[in-house]
């Protein structure tokens, strides 16, 4: 099943995770190169793993709890690479920490290929899941960067520096990254919800599923962040707080609803 690729990627992510934590504790950026290469090789192996699963199953490798976590972690790392390159900031360490943790959770779930009911299995359901999780990955990073923004902001405002701030990018960049994450995440998430809703209605007609209601709630919060951010006079600090709140809703939707309720999304 190509599980070896998953194990290898997880191991490399773990190494990157440890180095990142060490760097943060030491308040130095000097391990970044090692973190970069570990993550990059891990990421390539991880990509191979996803492709193998896709070829074997003929469906996007995102449907079981194991698959969803693995693809979630992959998306976060991909976006972290993109951010590091396009803003020329050293933030990959935060991405790999988050990525590893999610991947690690994914390692505990059964790894078999989930069998979707034939009436569900379709191109559109692939699109729905792939986009939803990618959107959530962007939101998760928005959560991380909002937290970093608040830490940096608080240090500057209160004039108390503990050294951790020195490995963070400046406020302007952090805010810009946040803005772009929401800017791209929101439409992806919206499309995923719309596709999912249409598919659901076509299958069971108008009925409400707990996941659906929760996702809609989350969507409303992101809509307000999106609106307030696009409208420029929104104060950056409050946007950061709201982003953190929204993420807590999302993550509950991702893990909590799936596991706790008898919903359509009950993990396979």
């Amino acid at each position, binding site marked *: 099943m190509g599980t070896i690729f998953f194990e290898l990627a997880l191991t490399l992510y773990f190494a990157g995770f440890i180095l990142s934590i060490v760097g943060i504790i030491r*308040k*130095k950026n*000097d391990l970044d190169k090692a973190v970069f290469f570990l993550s990059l090789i891990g990421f390539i192996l991880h990509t191979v793993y996803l492709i193998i699963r896709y070829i074997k199953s003929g469906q996007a490798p995102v449907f079981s709890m194991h698959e969803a976590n693995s693809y979630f972690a992959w998306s976060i790392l991909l976006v972290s690479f993109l951010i590091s390159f396009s803003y020329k900031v050293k933030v990959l360490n935060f991405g790999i920490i988050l990525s590893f943790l999610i991947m690690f959770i994914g390692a505990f779930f059964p790894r078999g290929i989930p069998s979707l009911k034939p009436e569900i299995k379709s191109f559109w359901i692939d699109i729905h899941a792939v986009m939803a999780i990618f959107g959530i990955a962007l939101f998760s990073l928005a959560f991380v960067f909002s937290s970093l923004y608040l830490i*940096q902001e608080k240090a*500057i*405002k209160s*004039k108390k*520096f503990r*050294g951790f*701030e*020195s490995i963070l*990018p*400046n*406020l*302007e*960049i952090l805010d*810009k990254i946040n803005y772009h994450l929401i800017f791209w995440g929101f439409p992806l998430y919206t499309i995923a919800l719309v596709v999912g809703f249409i598919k659901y209605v076509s299958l069971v007609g108008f009925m409400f599923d707990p996941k659906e209601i929760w996702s809609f709630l989350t969507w409303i919060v992101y809509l307000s962040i999106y609106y307030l951010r696009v409208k*420029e*006079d*929104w*104060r*950056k*600090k*409050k946007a950061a707080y709201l982003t953190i709140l929204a993420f807590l809703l999302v993550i509950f939707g991702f893990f909590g609803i799936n596991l706790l309720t008898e919903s359509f999304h009950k993990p396979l």
Partner: protein
Amino acid sequence: MSLTVVGLNHKTAPIEIREKLAFGSKEAIKEALRELIQKENIAEAVILSTCNRVEIYVYSNLSSDKENRETKSIEELIKEFISKFHKIEKSSFENYLYVYKDRQAVEHLFKVTSSLDSMIVGEPQITGQVKESYEIALSERATSLILNHLMNRALFTAKRVRNETRISENPVSVSYAAVGLIRKVFDDLSKKSILLVGAGEMAELALRHLIGNGVKSVYITNRTFERAKELAKEFNGVAVPFENLKENLIKTDIVLCSTAAPNYVITENMLKEVMYLRKYKPIFLIDISVPRNIDPSCNNLDNVYLYNIDDLQAVVDSNILERKKEAERAMIIIKEETEKFFQWINSLESVPVIVSIRNKAEQIRQEELEKFKSKFRDLSPEVLNSIDYLTQSIINKIMHYPTVALKNNCESKEILIYSARRLFGIDNEEE
């Protein structure tokens, strides 16, 4: 062998003494080096002369039995040389000098080069100055094997200290600290504008740093418009009338305030309105006037960052403290490098080299004999014995002169040993 450093620095001597002993120009250093290495017992020398320190590093190749009796005189020799070169009485500066020998001298040089001994710990200039002093000594051929290796290790140690500790990371002057803080808020300073309110030495210094960091659009305002115009000319900026302060606050990102006004020039209410009008775009205010010109409660407004002179000083103080802590970590690196240097020095002892060379020769002989024996199996024991004897005596004859030369206490013994190690490939094998 012996290494000696004689010198003084900002901690041991007042400026009046330091300036008298300084070697003001490159030429002066070169001349001094030429004189120094002509002296008997001084093999190599480097002179480091900066505004905070004057140090003379000397390597003497006195043999170890003479060392005990005569090293005292190396130190005296340097003192006399200083006195003669600068034409001042030895007694007038002798008390300000420090003298370190061997291990302490090496450790001292590593500390100096890594900027642990500097007035401002972690300032990067000193490393460059050491490098320059070494280059001058090189050009005068005042250094050889030992000091060349020592200076290179010193520069390497400084590099390690800079990379592995945070010793020179945080700014320790007020105007640099201000720039550092501004960079924590804004990204590309070339797209930001700055407003200088009033004038003053420190404000101008900070402005210069900011312009050096890329700030392009500079606005200057002053109660007397003429003065604003003068400054605008100097900084390539635009003079704006003092009455339009509020309008200007709306369009600038960084404000440097330093006026002689007895009250608040920028109040919280005023800034509240400004923030609304600038759509809460972040603004960084630096108030270096005493009494303060910006209401401290302005810092409570969202996206307003206000620092006064005491805040900046506090940042500087905590950075200095941080550097001191880092200096302790740097000392570990320095001890490590000192140890490595002495390991290298010890490799230049003659007996182990002779033994290694002889062992190597014997090893080659045995290997070749084995090869020979396996090729010609039908030789009688008598013949084999004489071949054994023959090869042994060839090796002994060949080894005779190198052994004698290495055992002799000649002047440039270390160089000879170093060369022998290379010629016979001893270190290659160990690697």
